[in-house]
């Protein structure tokens, strides 16, 4: 088992290098240069060129990539072209907001999505099942950021229960969590339902019932445990897409997260910030996916068996 974990962790290194390269390559095409952003619009062309030269802006792509990775390993993501501040500090200052948002919504999604999915599957074709399926369909079809706006209109404007913008207290996160959680509940519910339905029809379920096991135990012990595998993968993937998807939600609720930093940076053409933000979230995503892979191996005896010999 340890062999498997180590193997997964080692594969992660080239993956991360490749991820950084792709992001580096794309953002490299962004118009704009450090000289003109640092020195401002009034600076002469020569001064700007000199500044760019000084910062290594004209070096070949691979050289800059190598330097970037080397700095990254040492905890440095470069400095913002606009403000000159350390990108790493900026990202670390904002990461808690994005991570809190993503984690909270995933927890909401898991709790409601999986439990409602089980209910839906166990009571297939009942009124409850139909209503839940319809709700999931709607949640999956309407954009998350729009649902967030509707929640603001209802809970902040009409009822005045919760704050609509900014951070500061636990209350500020409630609406963003629900907003980001909605899409997740929808996909989780559908996935759990499908996965459970497949297991409910399996032979071992009939066996379990035939030997007189209580229905609750049959569902939780026999069906759910087998249905859990695809659900876990989805949780990991959703957490990842949530890291990117929070961009729009941060924008709706004016949350100072990494996503809103990237948007701001794109407007200013501040490449180090775009790069730093995207790369740090991608690294986080990759790490989460590897953890999911490892968890998967612990839950699935078939993978475990391959490595315990």
């Amino acid at each position, binding site marked *: 088992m340890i062999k498997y974990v180590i193997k997964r962790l080692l594969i992660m290194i080239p993956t991360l290098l*490749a991820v950084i390269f792709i992001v580096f390559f*794309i953002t490299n095409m962004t118009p704009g240069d450090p000289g003109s952003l640092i020195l401002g619009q009034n600076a002469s062309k020569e001064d700007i060129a000199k500044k760019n030269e000084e910062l290594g802006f004209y070096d070949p792509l691979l050289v800059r990539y190598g330097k970037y990775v080397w700095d990254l390993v040492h905890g440095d993501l470069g400095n913002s072209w606009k403000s000159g501040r350390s990108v790493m500090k900026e990202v670390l200052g904002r990461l808690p907001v994005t991570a809190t948002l993503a984690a909270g919504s995933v927890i909401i999604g898991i709790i409601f999505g999986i439990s409602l999915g089980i209910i839906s599957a166990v009571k297939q074709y009942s009124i409850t099942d139909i209503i839940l399926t319809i709700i999931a369909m709607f949640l*999956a*079809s309407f954009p998350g950021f729009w649902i967030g706006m509707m929640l603001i209109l209802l809970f902040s404007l009409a009822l005045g229960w919760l704050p609509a913008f900014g951070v500061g207290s636990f209350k500020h996160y409630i609406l963003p969590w629900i907003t980001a959680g909605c899409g997740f509940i929808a996909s989780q519910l559908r996935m759990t339902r499908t996965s459970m339905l497949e297991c409910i029809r399996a032979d071992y379920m009939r066996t379990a019932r035939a030997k007189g096991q209580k229905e609750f135990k049959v569902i939780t012990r026999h069906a759910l445990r087998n249905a859990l595998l695809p659900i876990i993968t989805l949780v990991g993937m959703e957490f990842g897409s949530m890291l*990117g998807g929070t961009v729009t939600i941060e*924008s709706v609720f004016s949350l100072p997260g990494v996503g809103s930093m990237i948007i701001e940076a794109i407007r200013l053409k501040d490449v180090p910030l775009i790069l730093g933000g995207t790369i740090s979230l991608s690294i986080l995503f990759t790490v989460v996916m590897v953890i999911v892979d490892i968890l998967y191996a612990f839950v699935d005896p078939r993978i475990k068996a391959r490595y315990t010999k």
Partner: protein
Amino acid sequence: MANTVVDIKKTTKKKSQFGEIWHRFKKSKAAFAGLIIFTLILLVVIFADVIVDYDVSITQNISQRLQHPGGDHIFGTDNFGRDIFARIIHGSRASLFIGVAAVAVAVVIGGILGAIAAYYGGITDSIIMRVSDTIMCIPFMLLALTVVAALGTSMINVIIAMTISSVPRYIRIVRAAILPILGQDYVEAAHSVGSGDAHIIFRHILPNALGPIIVQTTMSIGSQIISAAGLSFLGMGIQPPTPEWGAMLNEAKVYMLTHPYMVIIPGIAIGLTALSMNLMGDGIRDAMDPKLKD
């Protein structure tokens, strides 16, 4: 390429099979409702100019700004005094086009690469799959944003950005759909009579793998429409004054608390479009699933 696939589908699949799928599709109320909504939206897209003049959707009229729904303007007007009804009607074109185009391009590219990866295997397969795995490590929205940042905001660039971010998914889907077919006797038979690789892929393998590909394609158009709206909402998609639903939400954000209708209406338009695609996708999936045959 896309045409060949469609032609092959027409010639190789008997009508009765399509008839059967259509028959089962029709039986699902949800799928049928999706089809009706989609048809209505399609009619709006086609006859947008007949319903209301395009000029109405972009003409600014400050004296008429921020009027609540009712009266002369059934959906009200925005902060520039533009008629929201006209903007919704004409916005349907951009919103739907981006979603469908992004999926169509991604399916064709992903389909070819996925088929090549599965068919040739070995090192080709490894390279294609490693690259697409790597791209999948970057969250969809962030990748799309960086591409738009690099290329600039325009409809074509948004489609390119969304295609790049979603191609890996289609490579996986197509590859997974094709792998089990490779071992079939008819593929071996085609090999033994000396058919070329392209002939085998396009005549024997792809037509038989079409089912899952079609299902996944329909189901992802909805989420692509939402993603495109998200990009525009962030100001990184279609730029004003061109009417587009996501961009309308972006402009309306500031007025949300005082003029809620400005955000409610475009959101419903996006949601209904995505909903119709999702309902149809589910319907097609169920109709094509042999396990659910009565």
